[in-house]
């Protein structure tokens, strides 16, 4: 399934900036950055739960917020892409 992970992490303190970097890094392990604090991740149920558990450990629930959306298939009908950024489909042929 494709999930959308978005977050707001407070950057007012050094600890907050640290959490922001950690959250981004964790999301990268599961998917790709499509906008500054928006990640698209193709995961299975286990992957989703692992990611969620991991992110909840990092963020500070008083100051930050985290939203995870689940997109319904078929994705080509439910996801539209505009502008200069093009996401990589990790399930399409990967040839560099």
């Amino acid at each position, binding site marked *: 399934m494709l999930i959308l992970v978005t977050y707001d992490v407070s950057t007012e303190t050094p600890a907050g900036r640290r959490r922001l970097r950690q959250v981004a890094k964790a999301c990268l392990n599961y998917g790709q950055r499509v906008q500054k604090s928006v990640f698209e991740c193709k995961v299975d149920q286990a*992957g989703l739960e692992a990611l969620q558990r991991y992110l909840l450990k990092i963020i500070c629930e008083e100051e930050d917020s985290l939203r995870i959306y689940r997109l319904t298939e078929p994705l080509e009908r439910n996801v539209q892409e505009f502008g200069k950024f093009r996401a990589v489909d990790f399930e399409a042929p*990967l040839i*560099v």
Partner: protein
Amino acid sequence: MRQLLNTLFVTTPNAYLRLEGETLCVEVEREKRLQVPLHHIGSVVAFGDVMLTPAVLRRCAQDGRGVVLLDRNGEFSARIEGPVSGNILLRQAQHDAAGNALTALGIARACVVGKLRNARQVLLRGAREAKNTEDTQSLQQASRLLANQIRKLPEVVDLDLVRGLEGDGARIYFAAIPLLIRANQRKVFNFERRSRRPPLDRFNALISFLYTLLVNDCRSALEGVGLDPQLGFLHAVRPGRPALALDLMEEFRPIMVDRLALTLINRGQLTEQNFESRVGGAVYLSEQGRKVVLTAYQQRKQEELTHPLLEQTVAIGLLPHVQARLLARTLRGEMEGYLPFLTR
């Protein structure tokens, strides 16, 4: 059911692969070209001068992700493997079966039946689609000859005779292949006979390249179920030769390679420019040509069809895994005999 994981192909010279967290990064000239989470990747195939950090090699070996190094022409050069794991009892059963002439014969025969039946389907489909009656008749004639070979197989009780029937069948089949190439492409793809090491014409170059990819997939599938890819039944054991992977591959050659090659040619997706000639008459795909072929191969693997035995839809790329599992069941004695995958 196992998931079909993606294969990362790195064809750009001097590309650099490293780990970053749980992702694999491909850099070219210090610029990040791709970053993929490891959980999407089942194996990495690197062409020519690609650098992989020790961490990448170690991690992939550990997780059982195959790392295959091919040379610039796409010929196999090395494979990096982690510790042998899996089921020793299964491997023992495999070795016992190889020592038992009757069991070995049965499996070898099944592999050849799979190959020739599927080859015949390719010819019959060609006969249906042929543009003139002459071609149709020749193709029907060739498929009749193949049917004869298939009919003889159950009676054959000697492994060498099975190999002989396979060889004759392959000759009949390849002799008919030029008729499946569209008339306007026959000048560029003037295939006459199978040649390898090196391939001497474009069609041979194309199928040799695809067979290399397929044998790697078959090998991974066998290792995935815990079988020893080097101990074959139809193919004799030789140092370094993945004999069982070659056995398993037979049934897939016509459907996963030959048919795909013909489609690429007949649709005009590959042209003269996608090939390069070398001194001595060898012909290879160019870098651009390889990309076209890799893309098509990966897309083909994503297509789904119904497995006649399991009555389940399966991605074509998972067929080697499914068949490897059936082979394991046969070796364990849970199935009468091995049943190859047959297309309709």
